[in-house]
């Protein structure tokens, strides 16, 4: 057991757990951030996607020792500023408007992959969006409305 320190959604966190504990388990069980979901535990479905230093990663494949001193962002931190107003951020809003969330279990991971894409300057191109979320399986939507929602946010306003 060691103490690991890192930033989660802008707040410092410290956990005393084995270094090989998955970031996914630390988030869900030590920090109570259950918005990050487990779908397969082997990096295939993307339901546990979070941002690690701004890059999208599968939290099931990250041992917590590798998170020491780094910055983690989860779905709970996607709209911190907006949520204080009881509101959604633009990406969440677009998902809601377009019907991009159905059962919702892939949604947090999908949002994080989309966030990483948008933060990296991704545009509304259909193929580029699909590539950006290809690591996030959705069984409900057929992806059409998800792609539409991301494209709507990525489209620069005139």
């Amino acid at each position, binding site marked *: 057991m060691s103490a690991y320190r890192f930033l989660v959604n802008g707040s410092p966190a410290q956990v005393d757990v*084995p*270094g*090989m*504990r*998955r970031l996914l*388990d630390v988030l869900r069980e030590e920090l109570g951030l259950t918005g990050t979901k487990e779908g397969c*535990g*082997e*990096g*295939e479905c*993307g339901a546990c*996607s979070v941002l*690690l230093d701004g*890059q*999208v*990663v*599968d939290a*099931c*494949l*990250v*041992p917590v*020792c*590798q998170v*020491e001193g780094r910055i983690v962002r989860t779905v709970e931190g996607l709209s911190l500023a907006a949520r204080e107003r009881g509101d959604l951020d633009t990406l969440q809003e677009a998902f809601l408007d377009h019907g991009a969330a159905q059962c919702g279990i892939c949604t947090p991971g999908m949002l994080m*992959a989309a966030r*990483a*894409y948008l933060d990296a300057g991704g545009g509304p191109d259909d193929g580029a969006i699909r*590539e*950006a*979320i*290809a*690591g*996030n*399986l959705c069984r409900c939507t057929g992806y059409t409305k998800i792609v539409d929602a991301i494209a709507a946010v990525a489209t620069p306003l005139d």
Partner: protein
Amino acid sequence: MPAEPSIDTPRHLFEAYERLAAGPTRPIAGGTDVMVAITGELGPIPKRMLDLSRIEELRGISLEDGSLVLGARTTYTEIRRSALCREHLPALVEAAATIGAAQIQNRGTLGGNIANASPAGDTLPILLAADAVILVGGQRGEREVPADDFFISYRKTALAPDELILHVRFPLPRGRELRFRKVGTRRAQAISKVVMALAWEDFGSTGWTNVRVALGSVAATPIRAHATEAVLDGAHPTPEVADRAAETLAGELQPIDDVRSTADYRRMVSARILHRLLRDAGGW
């Protein structure tokens, strides 16, 4: 929740060497293979692990004496974004783009792909086709192992238990061409059914030289197809040569049926994609 072996996080290579020398230790870099093995309890759980994520000596992409050198911890995303890789080894960039999706590319490393030594490892045929040299090191010193000698048998490599992969050196001979093709079940997040790299040097009238045909997912290790290379060496990529090369390749390969594909499919498709690469190269 998977097993949680003890893990050390050294900052420097010499510390890592000390730990490896102390007893059986499983290194972990991006974790995209190791964490899956542990979570799924695929094989025995290691007792001790070694986190390479803080060792800066294992990073970096540079051009050194006519070779492209990639640190073992170079991620697929770094390969895709690297101007040096795009200029000098675009086939590796192409291969990196076919691995997993963003989440895996952000974490998975070139060194990890090599150490994991899956017969389906997507970058490995490129290493074979490009005559890459793998630098490994430990307390006993450093040594260079040609990629050709690295993959010994199913998931067994030339790496000793107390050694780490440090970097990979890709020689960049003038006039060398390198092509890559992956066939998977779907367009992302797919382990290959067949993966191929084809390299040659072409100085005009003498025909192709230093031809390399390397494949993954068709044998217990990534392999080179020597008989097919022999057909192509000294030849031009004409339709007749392509036909002969494809037939030779189909005869030379002994793939198996498994959960992802069939032996027949792998053999036929290997021949056809080689034929396609030769057709494209020949411009007919």
